[in-house]
């Protein structure tokens, strides 16, 4: 079937576009809006918000209750309470159906409670030495639920746990005992988050069968892309400002940064047009550029005066406004291109 505005799915955005282009008059537009967004819409929205806030507050309450480490409460009672909570959440999730949002939130709650259980285990038997074990075990144990939930919030929690575990491992073991540099940590963190950005793009294609994540909100992808770029920016900045102790892996990190930032910019500009990742990439590149300029201007000189700092402030203004103008132009260009392919 040839592309036409008439065989598109009718949603708010499509109707708004028709109205903007003058195809629908005001009366038709408001009538269409009333059909697409019935008066009960706000109730559904409030319902969902209350579900999220309610579960978040309830879980925080449970976490802080056990963090208090109440000595008068026996350890077996604590374990039994938390384990029954986990079982109840999984049963509730099954009963509500894991395709529905309520079922997903129950599964998220069960996953958080596993962390509480591991924390209480650590408190009880004083296993405090290697905190990374708690986070890595937690990530391994709840992986199955994250995979079946197909729920971005649960995947996000999983990634926060996995990232924390990796960072703690490096801090407690990898760094002090094996002598891994921070660059290997940055590369690993970037690989993990970058991999999830990558697979989150296969949600609606033929690869959906193998993808673990078919729902893919923009905030999820944006947060992970930002994490990837920040992790790779650290060795890049290090390479620029501390060129005396350059090692191969630092250069590798900077190379990976250039490759990732450049590749992602190309993808989000040409293949999967999206302004949010583009803005993140440009902001990150601005930071790197400003560090570079600042290093030449302030660091390399024998001394610097308030005049240098004023000059640098002007450069910061210049670079950031140039980036903003550039992004606005890109946004206009992309809007025009989408229009061009439609008509």
């Amino acid at each position, binding site marked *: 079937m040839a592309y036409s505005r008439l065989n598109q799915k009718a949603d708010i955005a499509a109707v708004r576009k028709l109205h903007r282009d003058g195809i629908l008059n005001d009366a038709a537009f408001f009538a269409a809006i009333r059909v697409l967004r019935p008066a009960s819409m706000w109730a559904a929205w409030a319902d969902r918000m209350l579900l999220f806030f309610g579960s978040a507050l309830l879980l925080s309450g449970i976490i802080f209750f056990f*963090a*208090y*480490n*109440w*000595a*008068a*409460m*026996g*350890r077996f009672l604590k*374990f039994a309470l938390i*384990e029954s909570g*986990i*079982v109840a959440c*999984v049963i509730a*999730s*099954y009963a509500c159906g*894991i395709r529905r949002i309520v079922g997903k939130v129950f*599964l998220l709650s*069960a996953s958080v409670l*596993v962390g509480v*259980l*591991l*924390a209480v*285990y*650590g*408190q*009880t*038997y*004083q*296993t*405090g*030495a*290697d905190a990374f074990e708690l986070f890595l*075990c937690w990530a391994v*144990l*709840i*992986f*199955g*639920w994250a*995979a*079946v939930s197909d729920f971005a919030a649960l995947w996000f929690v999983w990634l926060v746990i996995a990232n924390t575990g990796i960072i703690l491992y490096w801090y*407690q*073991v990898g760094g*002090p*005992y094996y002598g891994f540099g921070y660059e290997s940590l940055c590369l690993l963190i970037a690989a993990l988050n970058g991999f999830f950005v990558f697979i989150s793009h296969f949600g609606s294609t033929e690869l959906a069968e193998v993808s673990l994540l078919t729902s893919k909100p923009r905030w999820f992808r944006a947060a992970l892309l930002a994490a990837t770029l920040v992790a790779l920016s650290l060795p890049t900045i290090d390479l620029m400002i501390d060129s005396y102790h350059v090692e191969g892996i630092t250069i590798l990190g900077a190379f990976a940064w250039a490759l990732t930032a450049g590749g992602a910019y190309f993808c989000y500009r040409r293949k999967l047009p999206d302004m949010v990742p583009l803005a993140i990439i440009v902001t990150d590149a601005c930071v790197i550029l400003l560090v570079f300029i600042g290093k030449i201007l302030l660091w390399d000189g024998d001394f610097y005066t308030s005049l240098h700092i004023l000059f640098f402030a002007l450069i910061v203004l210049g670079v950031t406004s140039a980036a903003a103008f550039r992004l606005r132009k890109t946004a206009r260009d992309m809007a025009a291109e989408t229009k061009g392919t439609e008509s």
Partner: protein
Amino acid sequence: MKQILLWATLLLVLVSVNLSIIKKEKTLAAGRTMLLELAPVDPRSLIQGDYMILRYRIAENIPKEQLRDKGCIVVSPDANNVAKFVKIHSGEKLQDGEYLLFYRNRGGIRLGAESFCFQEGDAQLYLQAKYGELRTDETGTSVLVGLRGKDFEALGRRKK
């Protein structure tokens, strides 16, 4: 498939955590009490509750270069059960009155419980701590059960 994974994960969580609990309980039940002298302690607080960083005197006089990735040290408890360092274990048979204590090498020796968690607000109960009280089994596995003062009195609230 999704249903199987849902329940299999629940099973994995319950089985693995409860097996670890049973293992710790076995060490607690069958273990021998051993006291380790503490280097000065320092109470602090984090979001998971109050805890105290512990450093053991015994860890200070162990030659670092002979440590492996992980292994055991040989200790001998005195009349008060305070453990004294004998040597790093390398598979030989133990003499009478010698026991094993498991360690990990983290750029320095770690005897397992480098922090002690207690009920929020109870820090002053543990300020006088002089010894860490461990239960150890014959393989050297240990669980820290509490802190003791200079006269070997148990500190803080104890719950069976």
